[in-house]
């Protein structure tokens, strides 16, 4: 009856092209002798996963959280603590530890969300920040888990029949998870739940008076995003074999938020675009000039003024 207005009419080919490229990337990099960049690409995807989860809150639901790193860090520490306390047991299996990291992210989000979602606007921003900072200071002082120095993992999580320790293998696992996450987010956006979130972002009062239990929808979105951020944290802990409280510092939350805005608020590919652009700039710019952060700042300003809908917005225009 009506054409889908949300996504990709004639453009439907490019996600597939991107996926094909992503599948071939390790081989391409290998051909040129850039094997190392496989891990870099993995890092981009993990940050993209984190940014996409935040985009669900900020871009789709209008909930600007500046404490999203809390769930990221919590997921990472879940994996690290399991490995530290029960190393060599099934607890280090990705089949157990990654879902558990998601669960921890979800539970934490349920708790923080239940309190913070009672406030709005900047008050919401600051109260999410407050909770993340509290968690940061707690982990900073936890001696048994490394405190400020963070803690190393002796090895990546295990999967039956798959060696996650190999960077290329880990890359494909992350790619698969990220692809699934994007698929789920894309479906969610077009499903009833996504419409409700977008409705809340547009006009919360009206949603309430139409009979939507706004708070519940927001809380569920918050929990979903928390779980996804927890998974991103678990993956990042695995990629680096290292976790530290800095993963939950407010500046980390800020950087992810910047990635989302840069990439495109409420756009399915916004998280990926923002994370990739930010990390690539940070990787490339220092090679050209010593005070590269000035240039990075200027680029971000240019995006604000000339691409107000973010990088993914340019793509669609």
């Amino acid at each position, binding site marked *: *009856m*009506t054409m*889908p*207005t949300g996504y990709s009419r004639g453009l439907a080919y490019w996600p597939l092209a991107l996926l094909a490229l992503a599948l071939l990337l390790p081989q391409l990099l290998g051909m040129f002798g850039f094997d190392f960049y496989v891990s870099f690409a993995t890092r981009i995807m993990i940050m993209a996963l984190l940014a996409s989860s935040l985009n669900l809150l900020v871009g789709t639901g209008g909930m600007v959280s500046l404490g999203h790193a809390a769930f990221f860090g919590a997921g990472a520490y879940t994996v690290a603590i399991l490995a530290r306390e029960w190393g060599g047991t099934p607890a280090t299996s990705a089949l157990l530890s990654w879902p558990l990291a998601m669960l921890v992210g979800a539970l934490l989000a349920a708790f923080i969300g239940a309190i913070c979602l009672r406030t709005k606007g900047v008050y919401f921003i600051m109260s999410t920040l407050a909770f993340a900072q509290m968690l940061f200071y707690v982990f900073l002082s936890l001696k048994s888990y490394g405190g400020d120095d963070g803690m190393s993992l002796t090895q990546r999580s295990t999967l039956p029949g798959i060696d996650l320790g190999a960077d290329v293998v880990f890359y494909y696992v992350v790619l698969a998870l990220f692809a699934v996450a994007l698929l*789920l987010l894309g*479906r*969610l956006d*077009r*499903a*009833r*739940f996504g*419409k*409700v979130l*977008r*409705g809340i*972002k*547009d*006009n919360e*009062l*009206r*949603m*309430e*008076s*139409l*009979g*939507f*239990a*706004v708070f519940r*929808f927001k809380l*569920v979105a918050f929990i979903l995003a928390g779980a996804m951020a927890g998974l991103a944290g678990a993956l990042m802990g695995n990629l680096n074999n290292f976790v530290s409280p800095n993963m939950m510092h407010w500046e980390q939350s800020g950087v992810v938020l910047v990635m989302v805005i840069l990439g495109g608020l409420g756009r399915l590919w916004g998280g990926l675009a923002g994370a990739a652009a930010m990390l690539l700039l940070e990787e490339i710019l220092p090679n050209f000039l010593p005070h590269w952060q000035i240039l990075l700042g200027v680029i971000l300003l240019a995006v604000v003024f000339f691409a107000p809908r973010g990088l993914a917005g340019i793509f669609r225009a």
Partner: protein
Amino acid sequence: MSMLEISGLKKLFGGLVVTDNLDLSVAEGELHALIGPNGAGKTTLIAQISGSLAPDDGRIVFAGHEITRWPAYRRAQLGLSRSFQITSIFPSFTVLDNVALAIQARSGSSFRFWQPVKAESALYEAALEILARTGLDALGENPAAALGHGEHRQLELALALATQPKLLLLDEPMAGLGAEDSQRMVELIERLKSQYAILLVEHDMDAVFRLADRISVLMSGRIIASGSGEAIRSNAEVKLAYLGEEEIA
């Protein structure tokens, strides 16, 4: 039987009494119009009925349930639907999606994460039907933000209708409309009359006298008169307090 029964409602802001021991009812199929000068307490009354403001005292019974302390969304789920004085729609949605979203509120759970809304043909058929009833059928694919003021008011009403209400709480639906749009709105409400219980708050006296089965006059938080259009027109107190003012203004 009353669809809405308000008794002894009271609200104070600081020392100021804004709703003063107020009784009001709307019968099934009745269009009850509420008029009153600015500052009479209409906005606070609507806020209390719709659930965005808690009364200090009194009872609100709607469709057999006491809803005095219910949150707004539960009242809406029970069939109490409102339109807003200042247009309140979803500007980033298309007109059709606006209405579909409103229908979604009353048809099954919205905790659905997988199936695209667009595939729910029942939802969109119902939405198209509402658009037809509110005269917006030609505009379905337009972004809501791009509509003119009169069309915004129609969409506002369409949203209220889409939730399968038992009672419509219409907060100044003609506000800001030109003569032509006003006329269309009056005709629209006329058609809705008798299908729903309606509580109409309106400044446009011509519209009120044309539409209302019963009119109540609100002054300083109290109902000072209630009755048919004829009775209100001839009520001395109302003339003095209200219509007089209207003529001066």
